[in-house]
């Protein structure tokens, strides 16, 4: 088998794997907004309290963290309480919670740190009555900053956990 055909097979294999990634409605899902084939219209009317757009913009889809911490702040708790309430009244959505870190850390440590942040959000949502079967976490470590400067102004926004809505009541 020549190299090209090996690469092609590999590309196909990875392409199939990528298709497992479910439909997403995140405003800044790590793969970019609306990855998974859902257009911007899929987010719905932001004035409709049951729309993903309302969840992302009004309820708030993310909480921020202090440097090297995974403890949820008081403000974060308010946002997550709102998320839990929304999820409890919109049972057709499941979520993936993305944990992220800023670039001030080594790559693999930051993967762990992002996972801790995502788990902290997951546990809080469970404590607010959201069934664990609707929640799944993923860490991106420092791989997907949303702000790209190398100052605290950007770092503070990158240290985040984002609750990304998906269609389907369970993961």
């Amino acid at each position, binding site marked *: 088998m020549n190299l090209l055909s090996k690469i092609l097979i590999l590309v196909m294999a990875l392409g199939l794997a990528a298709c497992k990634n479910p439909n997403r409605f995140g405003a800044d899902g790590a793969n970019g907004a609306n990855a998974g084939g859902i257009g911007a219209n899929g987010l719905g009317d932001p004035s409709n309290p049951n729309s993903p757009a309302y969840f992302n913009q009004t309820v708030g889809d993310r909480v921020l963290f202090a440097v090297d911490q995974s403890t949820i702040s008081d403000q974060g708790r308010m946002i997550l309480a709102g998320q839990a309430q929304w999820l409890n009244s919109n049972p057709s959505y499941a979520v993936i919670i993305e944990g992220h870190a800023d670039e001030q850390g080594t790559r*693999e440590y930051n993967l*762990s740190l992002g996972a801790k942040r995502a788990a902290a959000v997951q546990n809080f949502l469970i404590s607010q009555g959201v069934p664990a079967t609707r929640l799944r976490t993923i*860490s991106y470590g420092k791989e997907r900053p949303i702000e790209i400067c190398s100052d605290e102004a950007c770092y503070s926004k990158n240290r985040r956990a984002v609750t990304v809505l998906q269609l389907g009541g369970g993961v």
Partner: protein
Amino acid sequence: MSKFRLIAAFLLTLIAMPAQAELTIRFTDGEIEPMPFAVPNFIDEGGAGEFAENIARVVASDLQGTGLFREVGAQAYISQVTSFDAPIAYADWQAINTQALITGAVQAGGGQIIVKFRVFDIFSGAQLGDGLQFAGTPATWRRMAHKVADAVYSRITGEGPYFDSRIVYVAESGPKNQRQKRLAVMDYDGANVQYLTDSSSIVLAPRFSPSGDRILFTSYASGFPQIYLMDVGTLGIRSLGEQPGTMTFSPRFSPDGNRVAFALERDGNSDLYMLDLSSGQLTQLTNSPSIETAPSFSPDGSQIVFESDRSGNQQIYIMSASGGEAARVSNGRGRYGTPVWSPRGDMIAFTKQNEGRFHIGVMMTNGGEERLLTSSFLDEGPTWAPNGRVIMFTRESAGAAGQAQLFSVDVTGRNLRQIVTDGPASDPAWSPLLP
């Protein structure tokens, strides 16, 4: 036919007579004055064409790149080397202050090239060591040049060779918030790049197996970070970490290549595990509510160095390869991560963060004699050359246009240099010396 199978096609034969060695470079903590050397273009002994010059240039580049040697250019030569067996005009080379002279010859034809060379100690007026001869296919001409340079380097420094080796790394492209990543391999000097994956999924932190035939890495191909094993010859990939609801990452081979130590995250907590590749048996090595990751085996396989924040921030610990109690070895200020055991067994390379700067450093395995080799906005992820003399790592520049590049530095802290790659690159891991 894969690059790695071509290795078997190499022949190694001795020619000429042993000679007395006077020409030496010894590594010390003091400044080293680079040793002047000359590598005239090799003699074409039939069909060699461009190989005669190209091989000599790669030999020169390898030696000069160590910072221990300085090439005396052809424009300074008084006498020319016109045949491989002609007597050496020592006085002419002394006159231009050349200490080491490398002569060689190349023969090509029938799908094969044969390279032979000799090293001369000009001021002793004698040949240094035996001449050597290598044979290979034309496609492997750079490897033969690296083998010549390795032999010269080893004879003069007394250190093990490392030029004939490869690097697996992550080739990067795209803006910082949409970085595309793909696995690639290249020669240690950046030549012969080969891409192993496309950029449809994030890939991180690859590692060569101890025999160079397999690569461990972390990929988001399933949508979630998991560890994978790739066969370099076939590019076939197998998942090692399929446990729903968990993240697996940071995989490293045991020195015998049969086991993989890695980090597994469940419910937000990362611990170290060991996977036996043939039986599939999984063993938990650490059990702590803190972050444990970045394992690295001692060369004899008996111990694992890793990072943990169990003390409150990232520090380096050593435990038995079967798990259990761990002893902390890092003691300085700041955070310590990504420990990598030297192939010689004597030192641990690490990433240190302190006062807003990142450093690559080394320390003895008991934590003593810590030495920081670099300092920048973001240096991380050291990997050792097969001879334990040189460390390669990722350096990323700051800001919105920040990019990752590969750098290497001597274990003494001298000779910091960028490895030229096609584009931004990160997470280098050195192969063993090729056979």
